[in-house]
């Protein structure tokens, strides 16, 4: 068969979002690839320049449908640094806990997507079923299922409602059992491993040079996790271990994300133990920020998210720049899929946990 270009996207089941992976195939083998993004560009960074600091929080939520809390969190951290505000201890714990719950929810969304990518609908339904519990927890805590508008500059909006901690503990107990179920369904299945092992190899050196962060980098055996390397909130007080894998392939990326879910459960449990029982959850903050710049970064479920804010002494930011982890990973995605088969494109790219909202902004 002659070589030909195939558009995988922008309207294609493989793309979780609105982007285009153009691949050049020779028969079933991919000889060239080219990611095309920008279909979902909304001018986010320009839009926020005309909004005051508190109005940007719900905007930041909408950067990613899967992990909206982490984005409003990193925004609040950046503005807090600009305004030089110290967040109360209890708010810090609630934020870290919400981060980890959001990480579990986001990874479950990824697991659901990877199920359909590999052609198995059972994984999809199991993962969405379990994600529902975490969405319920967030509904009780923040009042919304996906875009929470919960983080505030100087703390969080409200304290946890009655019985929330009890529900949380029950959910975690249940979820740990379900993790074993995933292990039996996927990890111990020869066919699932055949579809993942040895695909999308990228050496640790190349991975670092491409600027890739997050689970994909840790799957290359690199010990890089901002919760450990540049601790924010209270992560330096917690006792947890970083999840890495030496495989550098799709299977390693899968394993790292699954291990991270278990680790997030442990972190939430520890937070519950160490959290101050009462105290303020929010401090008063000025409406205007001083002139100057500030930068905050954190470990998003997909990698290192960063926000750089420039204040000019008014109530609106002069410039707010976003570093999306996926924008960087997608730039290198063509190297991952070159040489593999067409059928591997969904499984390799699905492992990156694609979310176009934050990539195109």
């Amino acid at each position, binding site marked *: 068969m002659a070589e030909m270009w195939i558009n995988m996207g922008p309207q294609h089941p493989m793309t979780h979002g609105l982007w285009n992976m153009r691949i050049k195939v020779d028969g079933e083998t991919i000889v060239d690839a080219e990611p095309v993004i920008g279909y979902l560009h909304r001018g986010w960074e320009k839009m926020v320049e005309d909004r005051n600091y508190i109005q940007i929080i719900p905007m930041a939520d909408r950067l990613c449908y899967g992990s909206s809390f982490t984005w409003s969190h990193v925004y609040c951290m950046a503005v807090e640094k600009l305004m030089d505000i110290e967040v109360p201890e209890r708010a810090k714990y609630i934020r870290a806990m919400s981060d980890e719950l959001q990480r579990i929810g986001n990874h479950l969304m990824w697991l659901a997507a990877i199920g359909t990518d590999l052609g198995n609908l059972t994984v999809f339904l199991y993962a969405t079923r379990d994600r529902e519990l975490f969405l319920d927890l967030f509904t009780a805590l923040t009042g919304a299922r996906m875009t929470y508008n919960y983080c505030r500059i100087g703390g969080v909006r409200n304290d946890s409602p009655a019985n929330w901690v009890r529900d949380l503990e029950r959910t975690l107990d249940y979820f740990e059992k379900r993790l074993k179920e995933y292990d039996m369904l996927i990890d111990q299945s020869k066919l699932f491993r055949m579809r993942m092992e040895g695909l999308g190899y990228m050496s640790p050196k190349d991975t670092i040079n491409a600027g890739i962060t997050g689970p994909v980098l840790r799957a290359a055996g690199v010990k890089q996790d901002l919760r450990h390397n540049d601790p924010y909130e209270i992560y330096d007080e917690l006792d947890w271990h970083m999840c890495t894998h030496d495989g550098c392939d799709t299977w390693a990326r899968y394993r790292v994300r699954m291990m991270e879910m278990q680790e997030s459960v442990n972190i939430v449990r520890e937070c519950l133990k160490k959290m101050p029982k009462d105290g303020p959850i929010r401090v008063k903050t000025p409406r205007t920020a001083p002139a100057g710049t500030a930068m905050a970064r954190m470990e998003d479920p997909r990698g290192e998210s960063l926000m750089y804010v420039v204040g000019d002494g008014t109530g609106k930011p002069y410039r707010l720049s976003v570093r999306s982890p996926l924008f960087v990973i997608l730039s290198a995605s063509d190297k991952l899929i070159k040489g593999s088969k067409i059928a591997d*494109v969904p499984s390799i790219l699905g492992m990156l946990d694609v979310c176009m909202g934050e990539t195109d902004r």
Partner: protein
Amino acid sequence: MYLDLWGLVGGLVHWLMVDIVGTILDWLHLYALADWLGSPGVLQIVTILVVALIILIVGMLVSITLIWQERKMLGRFMDRVGTQVGPFGLFQNFADAFKVLVKEYIVPNAADRLIYPLAPILIIGVSMAMFVTIPYSQGFYMSDSDLSVILTLAMFGVIPFAVLLGGWASNNKYTLIGGMRAAAQTCAYEVPLLLSVASVVVLTGSLSLNDVVAYQQENVWMVVPLIIGFLVFIISMISEIERVPFDLPEAEAELVEGWGTEYGGMRFGLIMMSEYARAFVGSSLVALLFLGGWAGPTFGIIPEGLWFLLKMFLVFTIFIWARAALPRVRTDQILHICWKRLLPLAAINLFIAVFFKTMGWF
């Protein structure tokens, strides 16, 4: 106990054509027409048509029952309820059929005007024609050919050709790749399929499905001596009817809907239906060749056809189970499984069959 379809329909046709219509015509003094209607040739043709109609309707009914079974059981496997339209979700198929019936029929501009409409006709026609060879019981069958096993598998062999044509004629890159995959995969899997059937034929000494079942009723179900062949046959059959984990031709994750991407409306509905028709024929073949067909304790009142359908549904349950538990296999891996795993196993199985036969144990 079984229903003698040919005898029943023949009697009915004779009664209708000779005793009722013939008497009326005689009364009208149209003796020549009455004689012609009552002649053996005409009776034979009408009987064949009526039997064919009954077999087609029964086959379609069983096929849509399979769709319903898959919806419900897959739902249970996935921790959900499954379809809920009508009592036990039984009306879902009809709702779907009416939905696709009112859809617009679109032919892509660059499609091949002759082949594009022809391919679904070929696929649907061949799939329905496969009902012909499947016997439900000793008396309930369309044709009792001496070569019915070979005929069924030969008709299976037409499908990849039609799929390739359809994918090619749609003039779409996804459909072309899907068609190529279908051709490569189905042709490859026919080899272990036929080899495992050959082992059954060696032991039973017949290519007629009725004789194969009769042999199993007298001696032993073929699954006992030929357990390897049974497994090889089931795996190859999943590939042959293009279901998960071997549904590469319509891998919806990377190829949108595979070779059928451009087919819409009732054509899509009928192609979907014909897939389940083939699934029915495939499960029936497993039941007939290895599980004793309609063999089972009847106690004089249970119809034999019931045993056959029960076994067929059980085999289809295995297919559903595989779909619920497994991901899709890749193109190179699917051929790897076929040539390097299934083919040697099928050959070993054939040796075992020949060994048993020469020793005279079966």
